């Protein structure tokens, strides 16, 4: 953790602390914010860091504990350590830096970069950008998805986890780039192809280590995506999530500068370095709450 901090500080990032407790839950349909003291514990420092960026902070990072309800398993804990940082400019600079970081901290070999669609085509045999949603749904069910997937994104996620990820378990780290648009989260769509988004994920030794975006700036598109998450929440019988009004105000007011950010699971990185099979091997405390 000290070396991660040194790496980021040496590259001009400012370390900041953000509140763990706030009034708004995370908008993502598949993230469960843990309620606490009339509010919620954060699922990542993303929105607070973006408010700082909009206020002109320049490159920032935070290493914090984050909380995601219901996530308990050999590679998941409700409470975990997240490192998240943002630098100015598009994604390629961040990808190069991530490669350096993994080499520096984890003695990882140079990463290979694989566009999502290419890896998916190789492992699944269909084009994730062009295949009809019905076909992707049927394919997901044929591979064990319980009941029809919620939507195109759900089918893609399931097939990727089931068929593509196992192939990324060996060899150097893989940076999966250009995610399909339904899985954009808060990444901007690619300029040369609106069917993909400038989102990437890092896989190494069978673990999903990091998730990064060329950050969406447009406040109108933000509202549209938050509304889509809430529609999905209603469909899935989940509580609606009130969008963070302070974030929207920051996006509309000073506006988010062109920047790229990434969140890294610190416990997972330690697992990858030590080739551990479970979190229990790398963390001293595994609290259970029920």
């Amino acid at each position, binding site marked *: 953790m000290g070396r991660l901090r040194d790496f980021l500080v040496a590259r001009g990032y400012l370390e900041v602390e953000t509140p763990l407790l706030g009034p708004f839950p995370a908008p*993502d349909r*598949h*993230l469960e914010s843990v309620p606490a003291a009339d509010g919620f514990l954060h699922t990542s420092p993303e929105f607070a860091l973006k408010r700082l960026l909009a206020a002109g902070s320049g490159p920032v990072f935070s290493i914090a504990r984050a909380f995601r309800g*219901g*996530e*308990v*398993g*050999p*590679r*998941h804990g409700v409470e975990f350590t997240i490192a998240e940082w943002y630098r100015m400019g598009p994604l390629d600079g961040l990808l190069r830096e991530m490669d350096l970081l993994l080499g520096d901290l984890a003695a990882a070999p140079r990463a290979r970069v694989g566009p999502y669609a290419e890896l998916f085509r190789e492992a699944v045999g269909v084009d994730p950008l062009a295949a009809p949603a019905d076909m992707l749904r049927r394919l997901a069910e044929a591979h*064990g*998805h*319980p*009941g029809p997937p*919620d939507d195109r*994104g*759900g089918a893609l*996620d*399931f097939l*990727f*986890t089931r068929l593509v990820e196992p192939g990324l378990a060996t060899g150097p780290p893989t940076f999966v780039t250009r995610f399909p648009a339904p*899985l954009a*989260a808060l990444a901007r769509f690619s300029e040369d192809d609106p069917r993909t988004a400038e989102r990437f*994920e890092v896989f190494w030794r069978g673990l*999903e280590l990091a*998730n990064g975006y060329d950050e969406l700036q447009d406040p109108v598109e933000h509202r549209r995506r938050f509304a889509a998450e809430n529609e999905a929440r209603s469909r899935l019988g989940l509580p609606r999530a009130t969008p963070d009004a302070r974030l929207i105000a920051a996006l509309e007011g000073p506006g988010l500068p062109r920047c790229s950010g990434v969140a890294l699971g610190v416990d997972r990185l330690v697992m990858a370095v030590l080739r551990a099979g479970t979190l229990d091997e790398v963390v001293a405390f595994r609290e259970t709450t029920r």
Partner: protein
Amino acid sequence: MAITYATNEFRTGLKVLLDGDPCVLVRCEFVKPGKGQAFTRIQYRNLKTGRVLDKTLRSGDKVEAADVVDTEMQFLYSDGSEWHFMDPNSYEQYPARVEAFGGSEKWLQQGVHCNVTLYNGAVLLVSPPHFVELQVVETEPGIRGDTATGGSKNATLETGAVVRVPLFIEAEETLRIDTRTGEYVARVKR
């Protein structure tokens, strides 16, 4: 109302109804891509067929508990088609068919205590003790220096089971047998 278990209550050894049959969970794993939906991947053994299968469930899904109870019971006798057990607490008797043993019926000596798994009140599985002590009723005399057979020979035990034993074993000796592997462990002095 049937008792149900949600996926977050799953643990190895839990007995649930899957595909209409009683099953025991062998392995369960929480799977979730960072931004994606959470699933619980399980491996389970169908207690009726013994087959081990995989299944993926949505996290939060509920599965009905199987009315499966493990009880220690005493083996009374076999009439050739059924093996009869008695619950030492209620004195109630339960018949078991050969399918419940998975081949382990050959280790049962009258009076031995077994773990009996009841499903909806009927015997589903019988597990004999891990170790039993049985007397040799017949074995050929050992020939010294015969290493071609790996230094072992067959011995027939009082229950009719045949095991491989070292050459020095003689008839009427009592042997300790591991019922899980069907192998001879040691001689026992009575």
